[in-house]
């Protein structure tokens, strides 16, 4: 059973055409899993990055001065977090 402990989902909002084409070139990197693909400037791109590849991917993004935010901090931890929210709501 594959788990996702420590995997993060990064959200990147490309600011210009150069960033856009760089992100497009990243889409086939086997290290990442594209959740929301590259479309146009200003539209979010979401990528899941396994924990072991985080440093490489972050350096890759920094090399082009591409900012990102963390949409999901720990993918494996998320379901229990959602469950807690659900219980709380009940």
């Amino acid at each position, binding site marked *: 059973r594959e788990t996702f402990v420590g995997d993060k989902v990064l959200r990147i909002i490309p600011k210009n055409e150069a960033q856009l084409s760089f992100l497009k070139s990243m889409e086939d990197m086997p290290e990442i899993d594209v959740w*929301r*693909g590259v479309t146009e400037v200003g539209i979010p791109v979401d990528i899941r990055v396994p924990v072991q590849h985080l440093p490489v991917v972050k350096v890759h993004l920094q090399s082009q001065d591409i900012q990102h935010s963390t949409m999901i901090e720990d993918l494996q931890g998320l379901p229990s977090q*959602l469950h807690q929210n659900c219980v709380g709501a009940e």
Partner: protein
Amino acid sequence: PDSQTVASFQIYSFQDMLVAENPSLVSKIVIGQSYQGRALNVLKFSTGGSKRPAIWIDTGIHSREWVTQASGTWFAKKIVTDYGKDPALTAILNKMDIFLEIVTNPDGFYYTHNNNRMWRKTRKPNPGSSCVGVDPNRNWDAGFGGPGASGSPCSETYRGTRAHSESEVKSIVDFVKAHGNIKAFISIHSYSQMLLYPYGYTRTPVKEQAELHSLAKKAITDLASLYGTYYRYGSIINTIYQASGGTIDWTYNQGIKYSYTFELRDTGRYGFILPANQILPTARETWLALMTIMNHTFKNPY
């Protein structure tokens, strides 16, 4: 069709139950088998006749996009509930059939529940590679092998060795060809909030672009009327990116003018792990857009 129903039943059991409860309206067709031998079930909603003009809807060809299979389940229930009550749907079903494939990639769906929640592809092994599966939305004979699909079996967008190599795809191809009278084909994905029409593999606009664009605009406007969810719309290549071997490019090239693909919402920023409380709003708003497309198809025979 409440959240408890969606959560509590296996979808296959749900389909059988729906048929049993509504035998005069719903039947189940098995159009083929997945690689691992699971039935490819299609629900047929029909008030009679054979090979009537029809509307096709599929959900969940990318297995991890759970909100689509959940929405498909809700649509099935909605159709039987609204038939005879909602004048527009009743008029459609009195003249046309609706086919609904809820679990379009059942091997992948099973795998997402038991091994890898993030699985997207089919589960057929690739000879010579340790990586499994083909992206069934890059496997159609429409610009197959062109840009916007990968030739690497380890990629999430691996196109496969040849068009229609995946039984999950080939079964739909055979069904569509054999039927010959499908007038609208709507393939549903998630979660980036878009409504798209052909093409994905070429920049050449379809000849009815103006009509498809205007209908997409109306559909997403109706969708937004419920919760204000913002959708983008347009051709695949202009709105997302170049993608070859895609479903609706093939269906359009088969003569199905009203070929659309949805990317349903996730306004909760959870991606494919979305909270359950978003499922019903997603299904409800999507239904409004589906009705718009189905109604337009009904009123504009070709």
